[in-house]
């Protein structure tokens, strides 16, 4: 019997639940003995010139070993993300001006952790405030510039120079549009950012840090500090959540490494929650203008998506992500004419990076809002409109107007399964009855159809599998788990070939000396790249073992097979004949295989979600009653892990629709920088989810696996937002921006009532 597809309990959990994890800040590694503690003095203003910095008093404070300003570092400002305007460089410590609340201005090294904040308070910085640029449209006017010498606030343009198609909506009976906001979100992982660095006598630096990609972090630290990549060794201890905000290094990591060099001592840093809420990469942050046109028969002919996206103060990956949004703009729909563009601007805010979904939820939210607007305009049920526009199953592989090739899909079937599981027709009847009766609680139904990209960008991943003479197995992977359960999943994939029980298989990751090549865990890539690589490596190891066993067993290689019960090579159909275990083979000679799996392209998982919400007509409060999710990511390796990913994603997706938003005032002061103010959810805000299975294998890898890590945020967010608007549709409400807070819902009802008067 195959272990694949079974509900294997996570092997990671006993340690997490008993001894506890070892995060970067918990490290007692002897290399860090005597480490100094870094405290950063951060800007309290969003945009200001620095007129003076006085660190003398801080230098005299107890326990202070050194205080650095930007002038002391000997480092030039750096281009953090080469895909954006290269003039928008980030200083390591701000010297001339600050560009967001939380930007580091001075660095204090102390003997003891607790001495740092006291000394930091003594650093005196004089600021000359400048007008803050917070609103994206204001940023786009270039009236106030963040980088005067660059001459523009535009960090990147995607398709902005293309001539807009003038005849895009020709022949459309109906054209509707709206300006919508996909709001800024904070990843808020339970483990905040942390790093520790120590230089060896060999001139190499070891950096321990909390991250999703050891090799990427190594490469960035090396590039930013102008070091040869071989001189940087990155080690990832346990990582307490990332959600995209821990992809690659943060400048603070490189700063820790540089300060360890300058001070000739190990240095460690772990940020506070307050620092995290302004310092860590945030996500989404797009203003979108959507226009959709088609016929009264329900057929959509044309769609336009104009994006104005926020990069924050210093461009990072967020400057690229709107390109993902453009690629996925038409979603699951067979739309004849598509026109998209994205401009990315800098503002006096925290930098934007990836956040679970990273560009794709923004695409799905936009097209799904457009579909709802179109359905409302022609008076057709939103589920019907979707079904009559999705790409037919016989058209795959399908090259979308977004310019990507969808490998497989049965979109209408996914919608039907979701509608059926929800009891859609009965719910519509219930909705009508409540409206008829004038019930205090209105019912809203939202349907979303989605397709996304997983494993986009880095299609290849490496793996190594070794059987040791004691029968244990070590798997090395370039992926980098931070909660997903790779140790369990990769052990299952190796065990499938070798028969070695998963308890005897150790999965190692996140050490660039041990595993120099790899692309980490992001973009829902791990299983379809790293997992398939492990499966391939274990298969290759079996072949190697057979070669060696053939001689020993005096048999033809083709007559050999694996006896999984015994983790041995045996002669097929010859019970009682001689056999040799993998462990015995390893005793004679090292039994190890390195391999690279390269799928050469991404996969395109899809699904449909149905949300059922209740809206309190008087207060505007929304309660999610049900969330039905059909998520097709191909065959499922481990339903426990699969459903866990869906649960987490759906929770974050619902939360974007209802609760979460990073808010700044007009001067750039963050208003949501604590957990009391930032609206991330607890279980009490969420229903039990109805998960519906559907498995369409991708042809791009031998196991048919796609990714599922981000599906929840992509499918659930538009379904919930749509359901909230749907509850109020009979009042004439067509759109409410996310998060659909009680205040916004109440205001929408008030406005609709005034319009009706």
């Amino acid at each position, binding site marked *: 019997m195959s272990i694949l597809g079974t509900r294997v309990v996570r092997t990671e959990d006993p340690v997490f639940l008993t001894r506890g994890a070892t995060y970067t800040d918990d490290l007692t590694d002897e290399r860090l003995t005597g480490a100094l503690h870094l405290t950063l003095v951060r800007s309290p203003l969003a945009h200001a010139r620095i007129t003076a910095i006085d660190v003398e008093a801080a230098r005299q404070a107890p326990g202070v070993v050194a205080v650095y300003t930007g002038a002391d570092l000997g480092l030039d400002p750096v281009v953090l993300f080469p895909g954006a305007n290269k003039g928008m460089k980030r200083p390591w410590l701000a010297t001339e001006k600050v560009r967001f609340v939380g930007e580091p201005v001075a660095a204090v090294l102390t003997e003891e952790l*607790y001495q740092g904040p006291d000394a930091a308070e003594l650093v005196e910085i004089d600021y000359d405030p400048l007008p803050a640029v917070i609103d994206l449209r204001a940023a786009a006017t270039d009236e106030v510039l963040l980088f005067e010498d660059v001459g523009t606030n535009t960090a990147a343009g995607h398709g902005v120079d293309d001539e807009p198609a003038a005849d895009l909506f020709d022949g459309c009976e109906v054209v509707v549009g709206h300006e919508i906001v996909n709001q800024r979100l904070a990843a808020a992982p339970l483990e905040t950012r942390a790093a520790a660095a120590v230089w060896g006598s060999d001139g190499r630096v070891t950096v321990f840090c909390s991250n999703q990609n050891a090799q990427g972090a190594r490469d960035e630290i090396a590039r930013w500090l102008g070091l040869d990549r071989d001189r940087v060794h990155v080690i990832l201890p346990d990582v307490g959540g990332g959600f995209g905000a821990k992809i690659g290094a943060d400048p603070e990591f490189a700063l820790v490494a540089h300060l360890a060099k300058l001070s000739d001592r190990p240095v460690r840093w772990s940020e506070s929650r307050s620092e995290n809420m302004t310092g860590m990469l945030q996500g989404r942050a797009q203003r979108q203008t959507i226009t959709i046109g088609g016929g009264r028969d329900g057929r959509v002919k044309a769609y336009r998506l104009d994006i104005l996206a926020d990069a924050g103060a210093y461009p990072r990956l967020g400057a690229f992500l709107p390109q993902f949004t453009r690629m996925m703009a038409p979603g699951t729909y067979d739309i004849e004419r598509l026109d998209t563009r994205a401009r990315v601007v800098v503002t006096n805010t925290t930098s934007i990076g990836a956040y679970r979904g990273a560009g794709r939820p923004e695409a799905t939210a936009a097209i799904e809002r457009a579909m709802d607007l179109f359905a409302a305009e022609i008076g057709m049920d939103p589920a019907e409109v979707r079904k009559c526009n999705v790409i037919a199953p016989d058209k795959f592989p399908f090259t979308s107007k977004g310019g990507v090739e969808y490998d497989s899909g049965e979109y209408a079937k996914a919608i039907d399964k979701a509608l059926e599981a929800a009891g859609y027709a009965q719910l519509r009847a219930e909705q009508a009855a409540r409206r008829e009766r004038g019930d205090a609680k209105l019912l809203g139904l939202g349907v979303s159809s989605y397709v996304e990209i997983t494993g986009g960008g880095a299609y290849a991943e490496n793996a190594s599998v070794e059987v040791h003479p004691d029968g244990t197995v070590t798997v090395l992977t370039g992926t980098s788990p931070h909660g997903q359960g790779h140790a369990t999943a990769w052990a299952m994939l190796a065990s499938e070939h070798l028969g070695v029980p998963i308890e005897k298989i150790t999965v190692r990751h996140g050490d660039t000396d041990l595993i120099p090549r790899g692309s980490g865990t992001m973009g829902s890539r791990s299983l379809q790249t790293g997992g398939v690589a492990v499966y391939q490596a274990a298969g290759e190891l079996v072949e190697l073992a057979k070669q060696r066993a053939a001689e020993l067993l005096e048999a033809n290689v083709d007559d050999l097979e694996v006896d999984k019960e015994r983790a041995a090579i045996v002669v097929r159909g010859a019970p009682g004949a001689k056999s040799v275990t993998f462990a015995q083979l390893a005793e004679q000679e090292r039994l190890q295989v390195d391999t690279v799996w390269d799928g050469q392209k991404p996969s395109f998982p899809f699904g449909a979600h149905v949300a059922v919400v209740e809206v309190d007509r008087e207060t505007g409060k929304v309660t999610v009653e049900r969330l039905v999710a059909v998520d097709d990511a191909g065959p499922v390796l481990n339903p426990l892990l699969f459903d866990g990913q869906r649960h987490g994603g759906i929770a974050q997706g619902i939360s974007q629709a209802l609760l979460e938003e990073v808010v700044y005032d007009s001067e750039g002061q963050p208003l949501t920088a604590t957990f009391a103010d930032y*609206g991330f959810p*607890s279980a009490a805000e969420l229903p039990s989810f109805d998960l519906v299975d559907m498995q369409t294998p991708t042809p791009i890898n031998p196991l048919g696996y796609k990714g599922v890590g981000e599906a929840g945020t992509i499918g659930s967010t538009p379904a919930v937002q749509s359901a909230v608007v749907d509850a109020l549709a009979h009042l004439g409400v067509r759109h409410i921006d996310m998060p659909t807070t009680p*205040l916004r819902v109440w205001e929408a009802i008030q406005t609709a009532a005034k319009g009706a008067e």
Partner: protein
Amino acid sequence: MIPVGFDYARPDSVDAALALIAEHGEDATILAGGHSLLPVMKLRLAAPELVIDIGRLTELNYIRVDGDDVAIGAGSRHREVEVSEVLATEVPLLPAVARTVGDPQVRHRGTIGGSLAHADPASDLPAAVLALNGMVVLRSPRGERSVPITQFYTGVFSTVKEPDELIVEIRVPRAGAQLSQGWAFEKFTRRANDWAIVGVAVVDGRVGLVNMGSTPLRASATEAALADGASIEDAAALADQATDPPADTAATPQYRRHLAKVLTRRALQTASGG
């Protein structure tokens, strides 16, 4: 998130605590459950020289019938208020309110005295004690005095408590048979463990409002209308009179006024068994 250094004292009696408070004056601060104090210390918005921890003073830890009142030791945890059998019988509003404070971890640490002393207009218990016409018992080396809760609050985070005084007890009238008009608590939040955007505590025709001004408030116009025989609907429509609700990311003043009316109506309906 590391506070400024401070000295710490854990006196073993109320008298010893009072002596310390008298000695150190405004340089000292009282630590009970810590849920209001510790965050502001960690954000360095407060930097007391001495923290006097009264969290283990069991003499402040009681809930008992005392004549026509229930006397609640100021050190009683929200959880103890929540599950008190005495209160369930005599003052059922209070357990119902305590049950909505934060989450179980918070309720096992936070104290009723701390909540009342902190004087955050967004806190639930002050408005509930206000609706109950409770008394706050203050003690200092100079002696003890009782202040009606209606005269206790002077503004955001401020009360008539003198620097050398400690809240030792909260007294609320026993309801018993007098509870002719019932009680109810309506709390409107975005998330289960949030502070109230608006809250309304109703008991016996009296209405306490959470987060509708700089202090907990009584909806006096509503109470007067009810006394004059107005309908619940008409009386509730006056609930925002003489309030000054704040603006924040969760609500506008206008929205809070609306919520106060809706929640007051609902609470009055529940209280009347409707």
